[in-house]
C-alpha cells in the first residue's frame, strides 16, 4: 500500500492542494488531482507540513530502557508528527564510539517509525577532558554530523575550540549545552524570586549566557559551526542575535516548554517542573518567543527527556531533570506561537522541519513538499477540540510531562515516513 492521494490539505497553512504520494516520494502536488484506484485521505481542514525534525531527543537506549527505548521513543515521535529525530549521546554506554552510534542507528531502522540520527559525544564519556573519535562516528553507517555532550557542558574553552575546529573536516556541528559548571554547582531552579523563596539553590541566567558568548566568539575565530541547545534566557537570545548580525555560523534551538512555562510553577515542589536548563521568568518566555518568531532562534527542539516514576517521585533535590515532549511539541508551539499570532504555519514548517534538517545536515527531510521530494510529511488539525494532556495515553514509556492535565489545542492527524504512514487518524499505523 505505497500509494496515497491526500486531498484538500493546506500546504504549510497556505494554499489548499492535493498531494500524490507513491514509492516513497511526492509524485504530484496540485489542485483536483486524481489517481484512480489509489486510497484517498481526506485532509480537509488539515495543515500539511514537511515531516518535523527534532534536533534534540533522549531515546535512552542503550542503558536506560526502563525510561524509554528507540522503539517507544520513535513511536512517540511519529505521534508528534516527527519523521526524523536526533538521539542525544548521554546513554549508557555513552555514544562516543562508532559502535554505539551504529547500534542506535540500526535500532531506529528496525523500529521504522522515523529516521534516527544519533548524536555523537564531543568528549569521551562526556567527561569534558578528551575528544571522542568524532571522525570515526562521522564515517560510520550512522553518518553522525551533530556532536554534543548534552547533559554536560563542554566547559574547557580550549577543548571547545578544538572540537569546533576538528569537525570542519566533515561538515559537522558542535551543539553546546551552555551551563558553566562552577556557577551552577548544586543548582536546582532558575535563580530568582521563586528559588529564594523555596530555598532551592539558584541557576543564574549568566551561567548560560557566559558560555554562549564565549562559544560564539570561538566559533567565529576558527570559522566553524556552533549550535546552541535549549536556549532559555532573554540574555542568551540577545547574544545570539548579536552573533548572527556578525555573520557568524551560529544556530540555536528552543524547547516547547521554555516557550510556555515559568519558574513559579515549581512553587509546590512538583518535580515534573524540574528541568535543565530550568524554567525561567515570563520575560524570558516572551524573549524566546520573539526570538523564534524573528528567526534568531532557528528551531524548536523537544529535549524529550523521559524518566521512570521513581526518578521523579522524590524531594526536589533528588529528582531527575527533564520533561517528555515529543507528543505534545507541535500542540504547544501552536498555543505559544501560532495562536498568539507570532508565527504562521509556514514559519512552523521552517522552524520545525526545514531549519533543523539543515542544521543536522539530514538528507531527505525538511521539505518543501514538491514533486520528487521524499514523502516525509505531517498532517495536523489545528482546529481539533483542545484536549487535556494525559501521559497515560502516550506512546512514550515515561509520564513526566509538565503539560499533564493542560488543554492543548490541535492534533497530529497523520505522519508519513517516505510515503508510508506511521500515524493515521492520530493513532500508530504500523
Amino acid at each position, binding site marked *: 500500500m505505497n500509494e496515497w492521494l491526500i486531498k484538500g490539505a493546506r500546504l504549510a497553512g497556505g494554499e489548499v492542494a492535493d498531494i500524490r504520494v507513491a514509492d516513497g516520494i511526492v509524485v504530484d502536488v496540485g489542485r483536483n488531482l486524481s489517481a484512480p484506484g489509489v486510497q484517498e485521505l481526506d485532509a480537509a481542514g488539515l495543515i500539511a507540513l514537511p515531516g518535523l525534525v527534532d534536533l534534540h531527543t533522549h531515546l535512552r537506549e542503550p542503558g536506560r530502557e526502563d525510561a524509554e527505548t528507540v522503539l517507544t521513543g520513535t513511536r512517540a515521535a511519529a505521534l508528534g508528527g516527527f519523521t526524523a529525530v536526533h538521539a542525544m549521546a548521554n546513554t549508557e554506554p555513552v555514544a562516543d564510539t562508532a559502535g554505539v552510534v551504529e547500534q542506535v542507528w540500526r535500532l531506529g531502522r528496525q523500529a521504522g517509525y522515523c529516521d534516527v540520527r544519533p548524536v555523537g559525544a564531543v568528549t569521551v564519556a562526556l567527561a569534558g577532558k578528551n575528544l571522542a573519535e568524532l571522525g570515526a562516528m562521522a564515517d560510520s553507517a550512522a553518518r553522525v554530523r551533530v556532536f554534543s555532550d548534552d547533559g554536560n557542558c563542554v566547559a574547557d574553552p580550549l577543548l571547545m575550540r578544538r572540537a569546533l575546529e576538528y569537525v570542519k573536516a566533515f561538515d559537522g556541528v558542535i551543539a553546546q549545552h551552555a551551563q558553566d559548571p562552577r556557577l551552577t554547582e548544586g543548582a536546582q531552579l532558575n*535563580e*530568582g524570586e521563586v528559588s529564594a523563596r523555596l530555598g532551592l539553590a539558584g541557576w543564574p541566567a549568566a551561567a548560560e549566557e557566559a558560555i554562549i558568548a564565549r562559544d560564539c566568539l570561538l566559533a567565529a575565530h576558527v570559522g566553524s559551526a556552533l549550535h546552541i541547545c535549549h536556549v532559555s534566557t532573554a540574555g542568551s537570545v540577545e547574544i545570539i542575535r548579536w552573533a548572527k548580525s556578525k555573520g557568524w555560523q551560529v544556530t540555536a534551538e528552543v524547547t516547547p516548554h521554555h516557550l510556555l512555562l515559568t519558574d513559579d510553577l515549581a512553587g509546590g*515542589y512538583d518535580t515534573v517542573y524540574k528541568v535543565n536548563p530550568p524554567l525561567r521568568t515570563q520575560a524570558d518566555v516572551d524573549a524566546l518567543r520573539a526570538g523564534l518568531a524573528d528567526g534568531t532562534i532557528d528551531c524548536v527542539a523537544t529535549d524529550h527527556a523521559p524518566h521512570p516514576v521513581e526518578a521523579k517521585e522524590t524531594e526536589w*533535590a533528588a529528582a531527575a531533570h527533564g520533561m517528555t515532549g515529543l507528543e505534545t511539541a507541535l500542540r504547544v508551539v501552536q498555543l505559544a506561537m501560532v495562536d498568539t499570532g507570532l508565527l504562521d504555519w509556514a514559519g512552523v514548517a521552517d522552524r520545525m522541519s526545514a531549519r533543523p534538517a539543515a542544521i543536522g545536515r539530514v538528507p531527505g527531510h525538511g521539505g518543501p513538499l514538491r514533486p520528487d521530494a521524499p514523502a516525509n510529511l505531517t498532517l495536523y488539525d489545528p482546529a481539533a477540540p483542545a484536549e487535556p494532556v494525559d501521559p497515560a495515553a502516550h506512546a512514550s514509556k515515561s509520564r513526566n510531562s509538565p503539560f499533564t492535565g493542560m488543554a492543548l489545542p490541535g492534533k497530529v492527524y497523520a505522519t508519513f515516513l517516505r510515503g508510508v504512514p506511521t500515524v493515521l487518524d492520530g493513532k500508530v499505523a504500523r
Partner: protein
Amino acid sequence: MSRHLISAADLTREEAVLILDTAAELASVAGRPIRKLPTLRGRTVVNLFFEDSTRTRTSFEAAAKRLSADVINFSARGSSVAKGESLKDTALTLEAMGADAVVIRHSASGAAHRLAGWVTGSVVNAGDGTHEHPTQALLDAFTIRHRLAGAGQRGAALDGVQVTIVGDVLHSRVARSNVLLLHTLGAGVTLVAPPTLIPYAVDSWPCEISYDFDAELPKSDVVMMLRVQQERMTAAYFPTVREYRRRYGLDAGRMALLPEHAIVMHPGPMNRGVEIAADVADSPRSTIVEQVRNGVTVRMAVLYLLLGGAEEAA
C-alpha cells in the same frame, strides 16, 4: 489552621497570635508537679529526622509526651545517595503505622511539602533544607513577646518591634521563616550580612537589607545571630573567619551599642567566637537558653492546635 505547618507563611496573624497565646498558657505546665496533660492521649506523633538534630528532636519529643501522645522516633540518617524511595516509602510505612502527625526534618528543601502529599496525618516541618523552620520562628516570636511585652502579652502581636537578623541568610531556613512570621506579626525586619550571603531576589522579601552592622545596632529591639558555617569559606562567601567576625560578629563592644532593653537571640548551635562572642552569649540580654525552653512550649501549642480537636472540614 490548616492541617499542616510547613511554612511560616501558612499562618495568618490571628493564627500566629493564637499559637503564642496557647503557648503562654501551656508554659505554666512546666512548673507543675505533674508536667503532663491528657489532651493528645491515643495520638501518635512520629519524629522523622533525616538530619541529625538532638536538640530539635528532643524538643518535639518532650512536647508530644507532655501532651500524653505516643512518640515514635524514626531516625533515617540520609544515605549518601538521597534517593527519594526513602522518603516516599517511609511515608507509606508511617501511614500504615497510623501516624497522626509526622514531624520531619530533612536536608532537601521541599521535603515537608512532598511528605504532605503522601500522608493523611498532619505534617510539621522541623526544618527542610534551606527552605523553612516555622516552629523555630514561632518560638523566637514567643521569646521576643515574652521578653519585651512582659505581662501584657495575651492577644498581642509584635507590632513596631525592630528585629535585626545577622549572618548567613542565604542558607538559613531560620531566617526565611523568621522574616515571614515577624512580618505577619507586624515587626520590622532588617537583614545584615555580606552581600554574598544575601539571597539573589531578596528585594521581593518583606524586609530591609543592610551591610553595615554597627549602623543597625542602635535601632534594634532584637538582634538575632545566625550560625555561620566555616565551610562557607571554601566557596568564597567570605575570605576568612577573622574578617567575618570583624565585620559581622556580635562582640561586647557591639552589644554596648544596643538600646537598654534590647535582647540577643541565637537559634543554636552557636559558633562561640565566630558570629557571637562568649561573653555576649552568656550575658543577661541573651535569650539563648530560654529559647530552648520556649521551644518545648511552642511545640506543645502547635501539636495541640493541629491534633487536639477534630479535623477542620476541608
